[in-house]
C-alpha cells in the first residue's frame, strides 16, 4: 500500500529560535526550528547525542550531548578556501551521568570550555535501600577542549542546587566576567571556576502557593559594547532582567529585576534593532518592541540583600502588572497544540470546514479553518439597482490613488468619486444614461468610457470626444491598455485605436473576423516601448471561442501568460512568446461551477489575477512561486482593483444582489482562513451535533482556580491596588478576554496565565457552542475537583430520551508520585432547549478514568483503564452489561462500525473486537503486532483503521481479507474462542 500525503499546513509551533545575521548584509534574521526530526525513528534515546547542543562563543567548537553518558565535541575550522570544516568527534563521555543542560563558556580566545549540569547516579543504581538516591547531588562540570592536544578533559566540577535546570553563558574575554548563570528552582546563581557563588532569589508572584517553585524556562542575552544583561523567563511567563555588577572578572552583585510578563516562550531573541521575538511551543508567537530596558524602579532581588533565616532564604514577592517595557507589535498564528480535530460542513459552504481545538490553558481556542485566503471587508454599501460591472480609474497616470469608481447597471452608469468618503458625482464627464462596457485611463491623463454605441474620450481639461459606431452595430467587447484600444463590433469586426502624440485617440486599422468575438484583451505596454501587437493577439484569442470571460496577463519575470476562463469553469494558462506571440505550455485548472471572469489587481505592488467563478480565486506570486488560491469570501460578479489613501491595495467588487463591496486580501501565502473562538481551559475533546449544528467541547486544566475563584481573587487584587471600579466583574470577563485582545483588562489571563494552585486541583467545564455565531449557549463548570476527559453522544434504544451526551470525568486525578484518583464518573446529560442547553440526567461512578466513550448498538461503550465495558441506561445510573478485561494497558479510543469495535490502546495500538449478542460477550479477535503508542485514531473502513503514534508516524492497520472473512463466516464464534484458548 502506498500513502500519498499533501501538507496543507506546516508545523506552526517553534521548538527553538535564534537570531543573528546569516545570509550576509546587515539584516537581522531569526531562525526557527519547527517540528522535530527524531533520532532513530523512535524518539530521542537516552544515549544518542543530539538532545543538547552548545557552541563555543567564539565559534571554534561545538558540543553535542545526549541525555545520558555521551558528549561529543567537534572542532570547527576553516580551510584555505574559507569553507567550514568539521573535525571528527572527540569524546567527553561519562557513564552513569544524566545531563540537564549544557552551554559554552565565554573565555575569550583561551581553550574552549563547555559547562554542563550533571547528576551521577552510579551509587544510586547500586544502593537498593534508596538512601543514595535521595542523596544524589547535581554538579556543574566544566569540560575543556585543549586545541593543542586535540583532547577534551573534565576541568572543574562543583556541587550545585539540585533544582538546577538551565545554564546561561555570561560574556567574557574582556566583555564581562565570564562564567555561567545557573538557573535553579527559585534561584539564579553566578558560578565560575575559582570564584565564590553569587546567589539571588527569583522574585515570586504574591499569589503563588508556597509549595510551588519558580523555574526559569527560557533566556536571552543582550550584549552591547559597554553593557550586557539577560532576560530570563519563568514558567509562569514573568520576565526578569538580570544584571551583573562586576569589576574585571570579579562579580560583586547579581540583580534580578521584574521586567514584564508575556506568555511562556520556548525561546526569546533580543534583536539589535530593539525588538524581542518570543517563540512559543504552544500558542501564537509574538514580536515585541522595547519601550525601555527596565531602568525604572521595580521589584528587585539582589545577591547583596539576600537574607538567610532558619527557614531558608527569604523570598521576594511582586505583583504582575501591565506591559511597561515591551509593546506587542505583531504576532504569528500558531495552532499548536491541536488537541482534537474534525472535518464537517456545518456552514453548508462549498468546502467543509476544519474544526480544531487548539492551545492550552488561558490561550485555548476553537479554530475554524476554511481553505482560502482571509479577506477583510472595508466597506459594503447598497446601490440603487443590480450592478453588472465595476471599474476604478485614476485621473492621471502618475496618481497614486484611484479617482473614481464607475458602476455600470443594465441601463445606466453611476460614477462615485473617491476621497475622504465615497460619493456620487455628476460632473465627471461620463455618460450616465447608458451602460458601460469598459472604463479606463487612457494616455497620460484622459479617461475613456466605452458604451455599446461608441467610445467617449474625456480629456483632462474637460473636452469630450465621442466616436460613434457605424450604422446600427454595437460594441460587444473591448480590450485596452494605456495606449491601445481594440473593440469588437457585433457581427465580428475589430477596430483598433491608438493614442497619438497629442493624446488623441485615433482609429488605425479595421479587421473583419469570421465569427463573433467572445473576448479579447491586450497585453500591457512595456515601459518605454510602444509595441503594436494587438491584432495578432486578438486573433489568437478568437481561437478560444468557446470561452466567455476575460483573460489577463499576470506578469512574471520575463514572461507573459495568457489566462482564459472557459465556460466549463476551467482556467487555462498558456505562456505567450513575447516576440512571436506563439502560445505554448498550457495548463488548466478547474475553478468552480461558473465560467471564471478574470480581473487584474495589485497585490504587494505586483500585478495579480482575480478569477471569479463560483468562488473567488487569487493568482499571485508569493516567495517566487505562482500560487492560485481560493479566497474565503462569497461569490462575486465583477471586480476591479482599488486604491485610496485609506486602503492602498484593495479590491472593489459587486456581488449578486445590489451591494458594492470593498475589501483587502490579507496574510498572503497562508492556506487557511481561521476564525478563533476563545475557550476557558485546555480543550480536550469535542463532538459535533450535525443536525443541530452545535459543538460540545470539554475543557480541563490542572492546578488552576475556577472562574469564580479567579474573579474573586482579581477583584481583591484590584481593590488592594485601589482601582476597584475598573475591575468590576462581569460574566464576559470570565472568558479569556480573547474577543478583544487589546481591551483594557490590566491583567488578561491570556497574557499572564492563570494563577496557579496546588497541583492536585482541577478545573473543568462542558461547553455547548454555536459555531455560526461563535456564542456559547451553555457552560457547565464541573464542581468538586472533577475534570472531563472524554465525551460522546449516545442514543440508547428503547429509551425515551433521544440523543444524550455522555461525559467521562475523573475526580482528584494526580500523576505524581503515582497516578491515582479518587473516583471516575460517567455523566449523562440530556439536551434541552433545542440542543442548546444541557441538563444532568445522572452520574455513575466507575473505578478508573473513562478515557474513551462511544455509542454501540444503542448502548454505551466505555474504555475505563484497561477495561472495555458496555453500559445500558438505567433509571438512576448506567447499568453495567458486559465487559472485557483483556486489554494490555489503557484504552484511549473506541470506534465502532456495524458489529465491530475498534479499540485503541495507549501503548499497544489497535485491537479489533466483536460483540456477541447471543452470549452477551465482547471478544478481541485481532490486534496489531506492532506495539505503537497511539495518539490519534480514525476509522477508515470495515477492516481498516488509521492511527498516529507518539513518534510522528501515521499508519494504517488492515485486517487481512481472509481473516476478516473467517471472522464473518464464523457465526458461533467458536473459532475465536478456541484459538484464544478461553
Amino acid at each position, binding site marked *: 500500500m502506498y500513502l500519498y500525503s499533501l501538507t496543507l499546513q506546516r508545523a506552526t509551533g517553534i521548538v527553538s529560535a535564534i537570531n543573528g545575521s546569516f545570509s550576509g548584509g546587515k539584516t537581522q534574521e531569526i531562525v526557527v526550528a519547527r517540528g522535530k526530526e527524531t533520532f532513530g525513528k523512535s524518539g530521542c534515546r537516552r*544515549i544518542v547525542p543530539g538532545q543538547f547542543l552548545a557552541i563555543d562563543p567564539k565559534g571554534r567548537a561545538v558540543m553535542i550531548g545526549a541525555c545520558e553518558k555521551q558528549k561529543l565535541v567537534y572542532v570547527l575550522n576553516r580551510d584555505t578556501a574559507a569553507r567550514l570544516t568539521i573535525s571528527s568527534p572527540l569524546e567527553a563521555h561519562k557513564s552513569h551521568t544524566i545531563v540537564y543542560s549544557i552551554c559554552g563558556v565565554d573565555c575569550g580566545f583561551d581553550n574552549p570550555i563547555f559547562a554542563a549540569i550533571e547528576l551521577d547516579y552510579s551509587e544510586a543504581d547500586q544502593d537498593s535501600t534508596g538512601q543514595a538516591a535521595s542523596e544524589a547531588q547535581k554538579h556543574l562540570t566544566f569540560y575543556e577542549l585543549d586545541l593543542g592536544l586535540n583532547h577534551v578533559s573534565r576541568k572543574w566540577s562543583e556541587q550545585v542546587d539540585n533544582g538546577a535546570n538551565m545554564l546561561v553563558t555570561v560574556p567574557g574575554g574582556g566583555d564581562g566576567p565570564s562564567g555561567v548563570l545557573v538557573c535553579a528552582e527559585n534561584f539564579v546563581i553566578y558560578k565560575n571556576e575559582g570564584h565564590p557563588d553569587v546567589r539571588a532569589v527569583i522574585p515570586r508572584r504574591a499569589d503563588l502557593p508556597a509549595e510551588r517553585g519558580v523555574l526559569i524556562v527560557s533566556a536571552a542575552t543582550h550584549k552591547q559594547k559597554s553593557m550586557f544583561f539577560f532576560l530570563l523567563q519563568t514558567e509562569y511567563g514573568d520576565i526578569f532582567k538580570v544584571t551583573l555588577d562586576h569589576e574585571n572578572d570579579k562579580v560583586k552583585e547579581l540583580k534580578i529585576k521584574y521586567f514584564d510578563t508575556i506568555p511562556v516562550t520556548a525561546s526569546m531573541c533580543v534583536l539589535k534593532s530593539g525588538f524581542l521575538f518570543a517563540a512559543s511551543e504552544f500558542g501564537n508567537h509574538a514580536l515585541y518592541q522595547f519601550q525601555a530596558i527596565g531602568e525604572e524602579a521595580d521589584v528587585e532581588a539582589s545577591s547583596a540583600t539576600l537574607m538567610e533565616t532558619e527557614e531558608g532564604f527569604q523570598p521576594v514577592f511582586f505583583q504582575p502588572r501591565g506591559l511597561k517595557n515591551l509593546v506587542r507589535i505583531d504576532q504569528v498564528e500558531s495552532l499548536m497544540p491541536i488537541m482534537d480535530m474534525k472535518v464537517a460542513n456545518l456552514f453548508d459552504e462549498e468546502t467543509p470546514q476544519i474544526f480544531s481545538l487548539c492551545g492550552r490553558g488561558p490561550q485555548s481556542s476553537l479554530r475554524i479553518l476554511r481553505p482560502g485566503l482571509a479577506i477583510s471587508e472595508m466597506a459594503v454599501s447598497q446601490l440603487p439597482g443590480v450592478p453588472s460591472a465595476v471599474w476604478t480609474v485614476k485621473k492621471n497616470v502618475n496618481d497614486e490613488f484611484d479617482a473614481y469608481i464607475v458602476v455600470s447597471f443594465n441601463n445606466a452608469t453611476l460614477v462615485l468619486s473617491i476621497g475622504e468618503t465615497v460619493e456620487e458625482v455628476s460632473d465627471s464627464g461620463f455618460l450616465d444614461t447608458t451602460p458601460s462596457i469598459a472604463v479606463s485611463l487612457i494616455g497620460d491623463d484622459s479617461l475613456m468610457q466605452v458604451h455599446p454605441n461608441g467610445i467617449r474620450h474625456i480629456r483632462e481639461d474637460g473636452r469630450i470626444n465621442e466616436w460613434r459606431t457605424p450604422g446600427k452595430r454595437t460594441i460587444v467587447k473591448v480590450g485596452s491598455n494605456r495606449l491601445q484600444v481594440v473593440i469588437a463590433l457585433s457581427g465580428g469586426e475589430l477596430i483598433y485605436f491608438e493614442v497619438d502624440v497629442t493624446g488623441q485617440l485615433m482609429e488605425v486599422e479595421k479587421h473583419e473576423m469570421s465569427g463573433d468575438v467572445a473576448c479579447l484583451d491586450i497585453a500591457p505596454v512595456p515601459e518605454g516601448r510602444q509595441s503594436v501587437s494587438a491584432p495578432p493577439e486578438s486573433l489568437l484569442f478568437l481561437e478560444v471561442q468557446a470561452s466567455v470571460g476575460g483573460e489577463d496577463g499576470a506578469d512574471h519575470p520575463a514572461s507573459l501568460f495568457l489566462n482564459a476562463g472557459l465556460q466549463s469553469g476551467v482556467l487555462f494558462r498558456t505562456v505567450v512568446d513575447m516576440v512571436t506571440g506563439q502560445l505554448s505550455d498550457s495548463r488548466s485548472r478547474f475553478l468552480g461551477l461558473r465560467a471564471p471572469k478574470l480581473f487584474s489587481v495589485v497585490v504587494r505592488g505586483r500585478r495579480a489575477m482575480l478569477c471569479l467563478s463560483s468562488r473567488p480565486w487569487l493568482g499571485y506570486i508569493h516567495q517566487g512561486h505562482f500560487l492560485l488560491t481560493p479566497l474565503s469570501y462569497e461569490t462575486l460578479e465583477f471586480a476591479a482593483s482599488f486604491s485610496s489613501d485609506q486602503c492602498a491595495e484593495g479590491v472593489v467588487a459587486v456581488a449578486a444582489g445590489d451591494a458594492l463591496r470593498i475589501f483587502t486580501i490579507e496574510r498572503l501565502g497562508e492556506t487557511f482562513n481561521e476564525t478563533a473562538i476563545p475557550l476557558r481551559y485546555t480543550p480536550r475533546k469535542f463532538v459535533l451535533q450535525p443536525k443541530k449544528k452545535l459543538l460540545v467541547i470539554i475543557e480541563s486544566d490542572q492546578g488552576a482556580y475556577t472562574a469564580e475563584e479567579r474573579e474573586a481573587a482579581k477583584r481583591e487584587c484590584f481593590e488592594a491596588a485601589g482601582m476597584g471600579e475598573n475591575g468590576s466583574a462581569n460574566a464576559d470577563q470570565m472568558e479569556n478576554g480573547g474577543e478583544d485582545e487589546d481591551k483594557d483588562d490590566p491583567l488578561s489571563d491570556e497574557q499572564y496565565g492563570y494563577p496557579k494552585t496546588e497541583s492536585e486541583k482541577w478545573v473543568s467545564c462542558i461547553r455547548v457552542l454555536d459555531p455560526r455565531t461563535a456564542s456559547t449557549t451553555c457552560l457547565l463548570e464541573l464542581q468538586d475537583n472533577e475534570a472531563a476527559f472524554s465525551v460522546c453522544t449516545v442514543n440508547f434504544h428503547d429509551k425515551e430520551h433521544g440523543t444524550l451526551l455522555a461525559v467521562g470525568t475523573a475526580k482528584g486525578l494526580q500523576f505524581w508520585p503515582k497516578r491515582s484518583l479518587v473516583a471516575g464518573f460517567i455523566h449523562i446529560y440530556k439536551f434541552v432547549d433545542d440542543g442548546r442547553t444541557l441538563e444532568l440526567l445522572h452520574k455513575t461512578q466507575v473505578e478508573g478514568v473513562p478515557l474513551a466513550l462511544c455509542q454501540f448498538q444503542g448502548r454505551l461503550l466505555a474504555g475505563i483503564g484497561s477495561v472495555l465495558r458496555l453500559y445500558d441506561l*438505567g433509571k438512576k445510573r448506567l447499568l453495567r452489561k458486559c465487559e472485557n478485561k483483556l486489554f494490555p494497558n489503557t484504552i484511549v479510543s473506541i470506534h465502532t462500525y456495524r458489529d465491530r469495535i475498534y479499540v485503541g490502546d495507549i501503548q499497544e495500538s489497535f485491537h479489533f473486537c466483536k460483540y456477541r449478542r447471543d452470549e*452477551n460477550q465482547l471478544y478481541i479477535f485481532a490486534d496489531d503486532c506492532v506495539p505503537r503508542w497511539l495518539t490519534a485514531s480514525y476509522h477508515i473502513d470495515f477492516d481498516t483503521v488509521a492511527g498516529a503514534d507518539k513518534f510522528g508516524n501515521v499508519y494504517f492497520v488492515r485486517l487481512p481479507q481472509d481473516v476478516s472473512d473467517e471472522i464473518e463466516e464464523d457465526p458461533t464464534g467458536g473459532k475465536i474462542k478456541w484459538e484464544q484458548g478461553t
Partner: protein
Amino acid sequence: MSVFGGDSWAREAQYRKRRLDDLAIQGLEGSSYKKLSSGKYACLVCPHNPVLDSPLMLSMHCKGSRHLAAESRLKERESMRKDEINKRLALSDSSVGFADYTSLNEKVRLACSSKPLIEQTRKAASEVLCNKPPRQNSGNQSCDVKLSKGQVPDVKTLSCPLVEGSSGLLIQHQLDFRKHRERELKFIEAGWKRDCHGKWFKDENVEFDSDEEDPNVCLV
C-alpha cells in the same frame, strides 16, 4: 545490539524476525498453510498435515518433493471438484437458487414444461428444506449458502410462495420463532442467562434496573 543503540533492542529484534518470517511466507499461497495458535505452521496440502516450527522451515517444506506431489494431487482433485460444480450449476441454471424466488416464478413455469424431471426434484428438495425444523434453519443460515456467498436467503422469500397449501401456517410459525428469538436475545443482551433447565437467571456480573422485566414471566 540494535544499530540504533538504546533499550528497545528486543522489540526491534522481534520485529526484524517477524519481517523475515513475512518474507519467507510471502511466496506461499495463503490457503496452503495455516498458522496455529502456538505460532507453528501446519501444511494444509500434504495429507498428514505436518506441523513445522517456523516459516523458514515451512518454506523449505514447500519445496520438497513430497509436498509438490501432494500439491499436484490436490490441484487435480480441485479441478475435478470445479468441473462437478460447474456441471451442477449448468443443470440448475434453468431453475433457480434459493434466493429471489418470486421474481423468477415465470421462468420456473417455463422450465417446468421443458424439464419436468429436474423441476420435480428441485421442488421436492425445496419442500424438504422448508420442512426442516426451523431452529436449525436459522442457525445454519450462513452455512447453507456458503457456496452462493453473498445472497443470504431471507426466511420470508424462502418460504413465501413455495408450497401453497401449508405455507400460511409455516410462515406464521417461522415469524413467531423469529420474534421469540429476538426477545430472547434482548434478554441475553440485558444480562440474563439460562441454567440447564432453561430457566432464566441474572448474571451476577451484570447490573439491572429495579423494574426490569423478568423473562421467566414474560417469555412463557
